[in-house]
């Protein structure tokens, strides 16, 4: 069993240890951040951590979505611009924060704008949107991302080069 398998098992255990979702009543904790002009949210369970103090090393020749690499406690992680992954026309500026997306192949960084905080979002409050990336939008205009769809993005599926 590789350390990575260990990670996977540990993560699964953690997820399983979380209290069960009360049927659509308690809501799910969602991290709220800016992306372009909009407010976006991503389920906390899809993330391993938020990094606000980082030093990015650009990678020449990499695809446009890859903004660079950072050191996360001794591990080197690529960072991708979430705005570009979501097909925004404009890339993010380099003054935001980096979310570490939890994945089987190890965490990957997502560059976003400023992080506002946590919000509990109930499933029934989400109005569906046609976008493939979104689970829906709340009445207050918070666009909640579908973390499974995000992890299934061709650039996030995972491959060691």
């Amino acid at each position: 069993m590789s350390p990575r398998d260990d990670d996977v098992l540990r993560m699964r255990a953690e997820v399983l240890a979380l209290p069960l979702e009360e049927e659509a009543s308690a809501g799910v904790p969602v991290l709220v951040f800016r992306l372009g002009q909009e407010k976006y949210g991503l389920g906390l369970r899809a993330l391993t951590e938020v990094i606000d103090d980082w030093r990015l090393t650009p990678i020449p020749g990499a695809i446009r979505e890859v903004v660079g690499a950072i050191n996360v406690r001794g591990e080197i992680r690529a960072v991708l611009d979430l705005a570009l992954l979501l097909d925004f026309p404009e890339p993010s500026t380099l003054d935001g924060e980096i979310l570490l997306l939890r994945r089987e192949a190890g965490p990957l960084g997502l560059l976003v704008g400023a992080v506002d905080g946590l919000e509990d979002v109930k499933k029934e409050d989400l109005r569906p949107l046609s976008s493939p990336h979104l689970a829906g939008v709340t009445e207050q205009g918070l666009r909640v991302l579908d973390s499974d769809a995000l992890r299934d993005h061709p650039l996030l599926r995972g491959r060691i080069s």
Partner: protein
Amino acid sequence: MSLRARIIAAFQSETAEHLQVIREALETPESLLEEASYLKVMRCAHTMKGGSRAVGLAVVEEYAHALESVFEAAHKSGSPPGEEALGLIHRALDLLEDATAGLTEERSTPDDSELIEELTALTQSEPKVDSSAPTALISAPPRAEPVKSAGSKDLQVVRVPRAALDRLLSLSGRALSESLMTQRTTQELRQLSQNMERLVAESDLARLQQGLRALADETQAVLEAQSQRAWAVQLANKAVQNTVNEALVVQARSVFSDLGPMVRELGASQEKLVEVRVRGLGTRTERRLLQTLWEPVVHLIRNAVDHGLQRPQERRAAGRPERCRLEFSVTTSRDRLCMVVEDDGVGFDYEKIRQRAVETGRLKAKAEPTQAQMQELVFEVGLSTAEELTELSGRGIGLSVVRDVVHSLGGTIRIDTGELGGTRFTLDVPLTFVATSLLLVECADQVFGIPSGNLNGINRVKTSELSELQGQRMVSLADGELVPIKSLAKTLGMAGAVQTVGQTLSYAILRVGSRRLALAVDGFRSHLDAVVRPMELPGPRLSWLLGGCLLDDGSVCLVTNPSHFIAGSQDSDLELAEALEEFRPAKIMVVDDSMTTRLMQTAILEGKGYEVLAARSGVEAMDILKDQTVDLVVSDIQMPEMGGLELLETIKSDEKLCKLPVVLLSSLGAREDVERGMKLGAAAYLVKQDFDQEELLRLVRQLV
């Protein structure tokens, strides 16, 4: 551990070493005629003899004695042992190995008195052996239990020597206490902050000034204390890291020691005569890799014994020696671990594999797979061509697992016929925490690493001395060869010109195979020994990127793959730009009585575009300072005439010079020197013994 157990353990490891020495010497039997090699072999045999008495292994004593006599006879006769004799000797060595292993494994002690007789016979007359005799001697007696479960080496558990753990514990304790010392810095800073707050309310100008003066002194004191604490923390952590690395590196023997006995036992249980050669067990490498590769290797070996190697009668019928050969070797290069399992058996039946592939739909009936595709098929699930499934292997799933394990380590596995004419598996995996020596270069405001293994030198050249050949800019190297010069930035697809300082260009010379190339960079940083790790990078693979490593400041440094530059296209327009038009080089005076140090520092600083004046002592330095203005002094402490501390004192008491920053270099980091220097107003101190040019340059940049 009982005393006896300890003695046995010592005897086993000692014997393993002796056996290896003897086996290695026998690779070239002629070496027995050379005095040095002969004495070494004799000493090994003799020591084994002595040791065997202590553990009560009479049989070892007998064999060792017989071997001694054989070596002696060969040495005296002046002719190396022939094929037959070598066969006997190897069998004796194998038996010795098995007997030693048997001490702790509850096996019957192998005995083969006929072998002893044969060995003795060799010494009595000319080394003439009746060729019919050996067939009667089936080497190891068959054993009740075939082979212990191969999976007993638990990969999740790592054995670390007790001493290493103890050391680690004490070192981490030290690291912790040193890091706790930095809490004091926090307190001191808090105090400073309060003092500052109080000062803000001060309205009296004189008292404000006085308060500010005091504050400046306090700040300086905190700075000094903190820099020492940070240093101590760094040292302690480095020691921890070194110990961890040591604990994780072991000899291959610690994992693969029982391979030889295992194979012979396996062979004996199938009535096959196997001559095993195991090489490179002394190789020190990563424990984790050895443990991970243990199972695949055992699998390959079992496959070889089960399907590759044949019984004596089959071998005889095929006109081959009855004894089969199986070899296993471990080697490491700078950053790879390589294991080879090779046999002289029947090899793969590629036609049968092809048929099976067609049957199972993996291959079209008319397809003509390439060599590479065939290799791939060998590893595919369910392609066992063994006529019968044995208990031990031939389940067909094995090879794909072997391949997957090797791939998961980022390695490769190859199959070929090998030198023995049977099957050879070559497993090649990258080492994961071996530090690679890197040259750090600056390029377009970024730092890149170039592996020193491919580095042929670094140099600088006046831009006017560059030439052109068929549209490609060329530079003439020290040995006269004209090689292409390319911009690193442009090769990586970055915009921007290469920076020159004083119309002089810095370049690194790369060598890949027989080809050389100059890579123009903005400047050199330093050397760094770092672990280069592959990184997950979404998108197409970048051929120039070998991986990433971490710099001292915690940022990620990308490491380049030199072969990319050699293979790359021409770079016809080498765009150059002089750094900062209004650049006035800062003047730095280097004071040291050692010419080597003066030259080295001068070279480092001049390479960065600084103007450097050198002095041999404090007196000479003061002489120069009389009529020359400099921006910084870097001085050794211990010098004849006037030492660094005196020089510092003289400078600080001089009205005109007192603002001039002075960096002290002390050879031993003697605390009292450092403290005195700081009191006298030194801007910084560096310890010479772990002199780091990057540290010096950083200080210089800061101070001028």
